[in-house]
């Protein structure tokens, strides 16, 4: 082995260690929680640094599922997230179409209003909405939460759609018009399929965001019967404060669906983020 090769190999090893350390840093906390979620709470206080579940205590998950009221919170989450994702996707596609492909005087104003949603922090609407939504009877309703979710996701989604739509040739609509087609046919059957990647990106991304959302749900929903998934974790910490293993099981259960979604739709999530970064 020449000296050059030795240098190269040790450099490669160093690089592998460096990258490996980052893998550990990003994944270990999750593994730690997942591993102790399958043990007895007492095991957490053992002297060893890390212990794999040799005799997995699956009962922790059974208890997290039922005592954490996960079926109820899950239903609540879906009742909010399915409408909010559908609405946000359709509305942002529509406004992006109107603002990138159609000609009208107030277009710059409309686009300004749309993009302003990216700058205004969600948290500045929490206090006033408490009064404002209450005035319309929207406090402690799913509709109130859905409206806020849609409002805050349109901006980013419309920007992604507008990037895709701007690149299409105008002849697409023109030839359809000549054949006598109307907008209500052209948009869903000609333009929307051309923006299919946009729908995938926007759909998955918005779903993840709304699934994970906490602070608006915490503020606008008061009754226990309507609360969403993140509350199972918080509820557990209050009621079973010393039952760490079950708490960990609950955390794992809540984290799992977004993780699976991420692994399945990885490509579209990444495409969306990249598009967002390029647009700034």
């Amino acid at each position, binding site marked *: 082995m020449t000296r050059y090769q030795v240098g190269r190999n040790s450099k490669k090893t160093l690089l592998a260690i460096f*990258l490996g350390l*980052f*893998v550990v*840093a990003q*994944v270990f*906390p*999750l593994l*730690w*929680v997942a591993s102790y979620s399958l043990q007895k709470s007492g095991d*957490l*206080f053992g002297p060893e*640094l*890390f212990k794999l579940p040799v005799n997995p205590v699956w009962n922790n998950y059974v208890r997290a599922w039922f005592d954490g009221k996960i079926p109820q919170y899950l239903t609540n989450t879906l009742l909010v997230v399915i409408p909010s994702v559908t609405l946000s996707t359709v*509305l942002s596609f*529509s*406004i992006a179409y*109107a603002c990138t*492909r*159609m*000609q009208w005087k107030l277009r710059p104003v*409309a686009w300004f*209003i*749309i993009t*302003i949603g990216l*700058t*205004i*922090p969600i*948290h*500045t*609407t*929490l*206090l*006033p*909405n408490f009064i404002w939504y209450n005035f319309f009877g929207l406090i402690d309703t799913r509709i109130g939460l859905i*409206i806020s979710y*849609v*409002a805050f996701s*349109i901006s980013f989604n419309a920007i992604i759609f507008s990037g895709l739509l701007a690149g299409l040739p*105008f002849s697409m609509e023109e030839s359809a018009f000549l054949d006598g087609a109307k*907008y209500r046919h052209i948009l869903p059957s000609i333009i929307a399929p051309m923006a299919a990647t946009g729908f995938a990106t926007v759909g998955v991304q918005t779903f*993840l965001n709304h699934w994970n959302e*906490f*602070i608006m749900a915490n503020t606008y929903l008061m009754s226990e019967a309507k609360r969403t998934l*993140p509350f199972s*974790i*918080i509820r557990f*910490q209050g009621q079973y404060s010393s039952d*760490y293993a079950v708490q*960990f099981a609950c*955390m794992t259960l*809540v*984290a799992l669906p977004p993780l699976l979604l991420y*692994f399945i739709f*990885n490509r579209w999530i*990444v495409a969306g*983020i*990249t598009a967002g*970064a*390029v647009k*700034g």
Partner: protein
Amino acid sequence: MKNLFSDKKTIALLSVPSIIIIAFAILAPLVVSLYFSFMEWSGFGAVTFIGMDNYRQLVLHDGTFYRALLNTFLLMLVTIFLQNPFAFVIAAILTKLKDATSRFLRTIYFIPATLSLVVVTKLWVSIFNPSYGFLNKLLQGIGFQNMQIAWLSNPKTALGSVIWIMVWQGFGWALLFYYSGLMTVPKELEEAAKVDGANKFQLYTKIIVPYMLPVIQSVIVIDVISSLKQMEMVYLSTEGGPGDLTQFIAVYLYQKAFRYSEYGYGNAISVIFVILAVFLTIFIQRIFRERSAGKKRVGA
């Protein structure tokens, strides 16, 4: 044909719903907030007009508010000067690896970014826990016996720990932005630099970083805005404490309104917060725009 692209009915149908929703759920609340920022109200009973008193108190006498601004600023510094360079270096390494390895590592590194803030926060609260947390056990394992630091409530470690959680989750985003930026650097640029005898270090400092400047700038804009918007992690871990050492603006306005029943005052913080967010966004974008415009002029 032209008038089909300006068909008023279609335009209205497509654009009005989005604009109404944004006006209703984002813009109107800002007006409500502005109104209540001039009032004193506990959430019940009489609403009293007190003019600029809330703002005067906030700007002139409120140490907690400035503490929150300082913490936001520290978070920005840590993100921009520690997290970003690390993310950039790793992204650069990833572009040189085999496709499969690179894709695998990118997938892993981005995992924390997909988790909800509640899960991430509770995860780290457990790791930082003084009696069973992993961190203290690790320190004990490498020789620091009797290590029982309460990371999140010790005044010396609380802010650092909270910032660590934020930076940890944000890392995947920064990495992904830089990686996708680096993939757009033309291969010819690198080859030309090698022909000119540039070493690897020079290649990055003289060629690639300048080429990537627009990407770096937009990542910094995103960092500044997201530092300003931090809330849930603090709210679910330290609640701003011990004292106000880990306070952030959004947590503070929330606590003022819902815990201390100073609804008017909370709204005054809210209004200042919006102004700050809008101003900072415009300000940074302008700096960057002027800088790149200046460069173009020099180049021409």
